[in-house]
């Protein structure tokens, strides 16, 4: 099978009207269709969902969502209110890096034919506190986790080698201290 799509980790040129990096958390009813309601609100207003993590809450009646959003920052407070207004949304908050912990995990498959490259890649993995989770003669899968910029940095360095593909979980967020997520 030939690969016709190559995934680049290069970032597109920034657009002044769009600011990425907004992180929202939502606590929602755990049932079919809830995500559709939320996604329609963002799509209608030309916001892009850069990352999305959904998982069941401690109480299985509810789910946790973390969304990474880019779009016109002026409209974001309104969007948060409109999400909050959905009957299936218990609450919706925006989080800043100062008031929250944000983590993500990436799996990176690197083609390493020849021992020299493998040693170099393993040094990068070690530096970032990552792990090798699969190793074969021709390739390896690396797991890196941490704040998004740390994952970005690891992938940037690994870009010097032959990356076959990368998969990122997307951001998960938790508010610090007394604040709830």
């Amino acid at each position, binding site marked *: 099978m030939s690969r016709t799509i190559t995934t680049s980790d290069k970032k597109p040129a920034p657009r002044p009207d769009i600011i990425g990096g907004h992180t929202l958390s939502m606590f*929602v*009813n755990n049932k079919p*269709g809830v995500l559709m309601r939320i996604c329609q609100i963002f799509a209608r207003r030309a916001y892009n969902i850069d990352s999305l993590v959904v998982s069941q809450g401690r109480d299985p009646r*509810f789910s946790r969502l973390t969304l990474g959003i880019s779009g016109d920052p002026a409209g974001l407070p309104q969007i948060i209110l409109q999400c909050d*207004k959905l*009957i299936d949304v*218990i609450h919706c908050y925006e989080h800043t890096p100062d008031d929250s912990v944000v983590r993500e995990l990436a799996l990176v498959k690197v083609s390493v034919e020849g021992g020299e490259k493998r040693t170099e890649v393993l040094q990068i993995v070690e530096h970032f506190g990552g792990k090798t989770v699969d190793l074969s003669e021709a390739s390896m899968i690396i797991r890196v986790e941490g704040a998004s910029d740390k994952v970005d940095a690891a992938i940037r360095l690994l870009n010097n080698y032959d990356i076959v593909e990368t998969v990122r979980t997307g951001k998960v967020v938790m508010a610090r201290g007394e604040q709830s997520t």
Partner: protein
Amino acid sequence: MANSKLEEMDGAQALITTLSELGVEYVFGYSGGAALPIFDALETVESNIKFVLTRHEQGATHMADGYARATGKPGVVLVTSGPGAGNTITGIMTAQMDSVPMIILSGQQVTWMLGKDAFQEADIFGITIPIVKHNYLVRETNELPKVAREAFHIATTGRPGPVLIDVPKNVSQSPFTGDLEAEIDLPGYKPEKAMDIDSSSLEQAARLINLAKKPVILAGHGAMIAGAEAELMELASRTESPVTSTLLGKGVFPESHPLSVGMLGMHGTAYANKAICECDLLINVGSRFDDRIIGQAEKFCAQAKIIHIEIDSAEVGKMIVPDVAVVGDAKVALTQLLPMIEQADRADWLEHINGYKKKYPLGYRKQGGLRMQQVLDEIHELTNGEAIITTDVGQHQMWAAQFYLNEASFKWISSGGAGTMGFGFPAAIGAQFACPDETVIAVAGDGGFQMTLCEIATAVIHKLPIKILVLNNHYLGMVRQWQELFFENRESGVDLEGNPDFVKLAEAYGCKGINIKRPADVKKKLQEALDYNDGPVLINAECVKTDNVFPMIPAGAALEDMLIEPPKHKMAKPVGST
């Protein structure tokens, strides 16, 4: 209990039993395969529910809408799956835009066929997500009563809106073994918060009101839904403020009251718009600052302070950022605000506004043929402003808003936010069912009326004494007006050639028909229609073809750029919304 005679029931019977317990009087709808069990339950369950068979599902939604707007109670619609449900879209959207409580029950294919392009399958749950307050696809028979109770609660509390319940056929026809009284469970919905208003916002609002020299009150649909008429009157009297209303707020403050300046906005009165332009404080009670009333947002009340009393926090700051936001129910807010408001003397300000009333009165030419304004003016006089008026959308709607002054809430039923043609006549049917003793007048243009005129049959069958007033100019007049003003009079897609003879058409349905052709006949013919109560009567008024509605604020222009009369120079194309 209504189901006492049923020892065993299926889901559909449990659903109808629940609707009956919730006080449903009328269900408007159209039958079909996937809804068969629910239609059967209407026959097998002993209840007070009366089913009204319409001629099209869109008509059913507008009837439910008219019923809801005339009573404040939710209108209920029952349709089948696929095209049946699809035909309700426009009506649901109309209700959502105008905050109207409505329950739409749609039949659906059996659950194991969903997603397989089965016969008459449509994902109406997915399709309607953006146009409902909430919706359900019920997969468990025993959930039906709880879902129905939740739907009614959601539709009628907070900011009202439509709720759709999609019921697969196997869910409705399976045995019901659950609890008919199951309690609702809506952890993400807290409408009671609207009753608990931040007192500091009220104190700030009171301070601004007491300091203002030239305040104006803007009364919206929210004030009407909250039932804040008395509080609004007290606020207006105590602050000596002129009161303007939105299209949907018409009647919440009596329009013949000396403090009333009528409707504001794109085709509002000149004096209402001038009051807005010159005020130093705008007190918005329950309006969402629709683009039709604010024009160019940056220039709207730029010199004035703004208080926004609003039940839906997502509306605060959406169009206009207020100086003080009071989030909550309008009646509760005004009740708590009033003790802090001082009796004011603003005679100079009122005198100034009255000057505008004298200088720029609403009027129309009495020569050169029959004008819609005259017909509306005369029907207003003949009914003392006490009839329930429903309208379609377009020139006739704006003239009706200008010339039919409303004195009370729930008597003006018009599609505002959605601007739905074809709304007025079926809405009048719903309103007449709700208020059998009131005079109900459906004001329609010849364009919109033809979109839903098949409902003449529905009105005839039930002998509803609706006055269907077709203001016929053989044109889509409002669009033609824009083409005349902004597109060098190039008419495109507006000439309704091929209109039927509406009187003969009415007669074919067994409906009385009356033609009005001469201005001198208007009063006599309208009186004849008002005196006829054995069923609906259609009045076809042949009006001047190319009249235009003024005042007018071109879309996106500022209120101060209002055209009070026809412009003498060529107009630039409007840049704002539509």
